[in-house]
């Protein structure tokens, strides 16, 4: 993805920035191209809820005028992006992916939207998502009023959830940057299945103000893009305390980690149990790359009920956040059958169970921090499989009880994580490698990711369909 030709929205933010500042393109041209792709390819993938054309063209024109006058807001100046539709944007519906809210307006911008606008970024779309970010208990891809999120590499495969539109839109070259959210896997899943970069920041690094609350103590907002550098450029804008979100950290400004070698890595005992053979093969190939720029030791996750604690906390907090909605019968209008009723069960979850989960969480945080202290990152297979068929229920997926994954522990304990492509697996679909680090060492994880990218080219691979068709349509021979 070097340079901006032939498909500008497949280019990295850095390359687009060079093109903008050299006069090769304009913010208005980029916005128009992004809007056109969103309305064609994006709609076909069920990745788009609303295109924000009027706002986009106004912001883009402002960006061009400012650059012409020597006012440069920085790396994101003039860059088109999409926001997961759980982020409030004044003047446009904020649907949370749920049919009952398809015409609901919230007249204040979310904090991340404010920050990106101040940095000169151009919002072009609100992107599709699983209804209520998957917190109502969905167990199949068709769980959004916009339809099941289709994968950019094969529309008969799932884009992942719950940030399905964010993942597919970036992968298909509709936008070079999207904002997703993760409570438990919602950035990492779509990033892995679509071969893009997804970054889950430390809990509290990015303000949740103006974002739908699913689980106050587990929700995180993060960037999804074509390169790790793009994620870091975005994080530089998003990170920081916000008095409107009491969970945001009081810390000094985010500092990049410039290291590119000499890292200390860990792998997990049992990490490939239950993992598809082709994904495991790519993982072992990736490990050889990590050996080039760091030491690799094997560690064992402590036998703590990470996943049970995370599930209990999310259920209790989601039931509380949507208590009135549930009691008034609003869930009956949701798309997925299980979403209409499953969370009702959490209305009778005992308080002592929730509190036990929070007490376990404190123990888990201490244990995992001690385990990770000697390491810069834990390397794991990003997902056990490639993207599943669009019509497959999750319960049909292989589920090996011996499998050891770090996702539940990382989300329970608020740890940063990076998802990166590591080649192709079964059916020519993307496989991904995940990195997890200690809380607040986001910059370290991103430095590791940049070093991995410099030694591989996986992040530059583009999907054959439908994105290539969209590109060809824009650049006919």
């Amino acid at each position: 993805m070097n340079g901006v030709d032939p498909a500008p929205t497949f280019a990295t933010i850095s390359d687009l920035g060079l093109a903008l500042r050299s006069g090769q393109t304009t913010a208005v041209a980029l916005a128009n191209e992004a809007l056109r792709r969103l309305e064609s390819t994006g709609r076909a993938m069920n990745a788009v809820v609303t295109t924000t054309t009027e706002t986009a063209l106004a912001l883009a024109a402002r960006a061009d005028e400012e650059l012409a006058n020597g006012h440069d807001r920085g790396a994101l100046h003039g860059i088109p992006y999409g926001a997961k539709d759980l982020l409030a944007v004044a003047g446009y519906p904020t649907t949370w992916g749920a049919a009952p809210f398809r015409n609901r307006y919230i007249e204040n911008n979310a904090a991340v939207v404010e920050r990106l606008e101040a940095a000169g970024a151009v919002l072009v779309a609100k992107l599709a998502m699983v209804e209520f970010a998957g917190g109502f208990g969905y167990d199949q891809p068709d769980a959004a009023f916009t339809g099941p999120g289709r994968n950019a590499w094969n529309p008969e495969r799932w884009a992942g959830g719950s940030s399905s539109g964010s993942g597919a839109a970036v992968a298909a070259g509709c936008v070079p940057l999207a904002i997703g959210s993760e409570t438990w896997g919602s950035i990492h899943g779509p990033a892995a299945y679509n071969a893009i970069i997804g970054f889950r920041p430390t809990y509290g690094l990015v303000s949740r103000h103006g974002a739908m609350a699913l689980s106050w103590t587990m929700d995180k907002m993060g960037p999804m893009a074509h390169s790790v550098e793009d994620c870091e450029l975005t994080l530089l804008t998003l990170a920081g305390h916000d008095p409107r979100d009491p969970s945001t950290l009081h810390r000094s400004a985010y500092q990049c980690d410039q290291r590119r070698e000499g890292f200390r890595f860990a792998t997990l005992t049992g990490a490939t149990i239950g993992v598809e053979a082709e994904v495991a093969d790519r993982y072992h190939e990736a490990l050889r790359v990590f050996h080039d720029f760091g030491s690799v030791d094997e560690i064992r996750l402590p036998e703590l009920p990470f996943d049970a604690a995370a599930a209990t906390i999310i259920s209790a907090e989601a039931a509380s956040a949507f208590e009135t909605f549930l009691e008034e019968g609003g869930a009956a209008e949701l798309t997925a059958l299980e979403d209409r009723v499953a969370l009702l069960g959490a209305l009778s979850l005992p308080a002592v169970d929730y509190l036990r989960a929070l007490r376990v969480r404190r123990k888990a945080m201490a244990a995992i921090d001690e385990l990770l202290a000697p390491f810069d990152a834990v390397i794991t297979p990003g997902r056990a499989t490639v993207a599943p068929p669009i019509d497959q229920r999750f319960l049909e997926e292989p589920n090996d009880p011996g499998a050891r994954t770090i996702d539940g522990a990382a989300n329970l304990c608020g740890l940063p994580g990076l998802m990166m492509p590591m080649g192709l697996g079964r059916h020519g679909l993307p496989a991904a490698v995940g990195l997890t680090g200690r809380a607040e060492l986001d910059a370290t994880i991103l430095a590791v990711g940049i070093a991995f990218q410099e030694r591989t080219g996986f992040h530059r691979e583009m999907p054959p369909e439908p994105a290539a068709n969209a590109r060809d349509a824009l650049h006919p021979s």
Partner: protein
Amino acid sequence: MLENRQGESHEVEIEARVALALARANSKLTGSEADIVRDRIARSIEHRHQLRTLSLENQDEPAHGFDLGFLSRPGPREDAP
């Protein structure tokens, strides 16, 4: 069927929780919908069993987010007694 520590079925708890949830939501469910709710409640009970595998002491506190910092009011008046 899940069992409690005495080896008894959790059916009583599941049905009681289903009834409580439906009463709160003033909701009537079809048979298949009720089965989904039962399944999720059964899963939450399984999670409780897993959580109990970790021993906790009396003073092991929850990882709460309780914070007075959001109160943007001034401090005590200087002339207060």
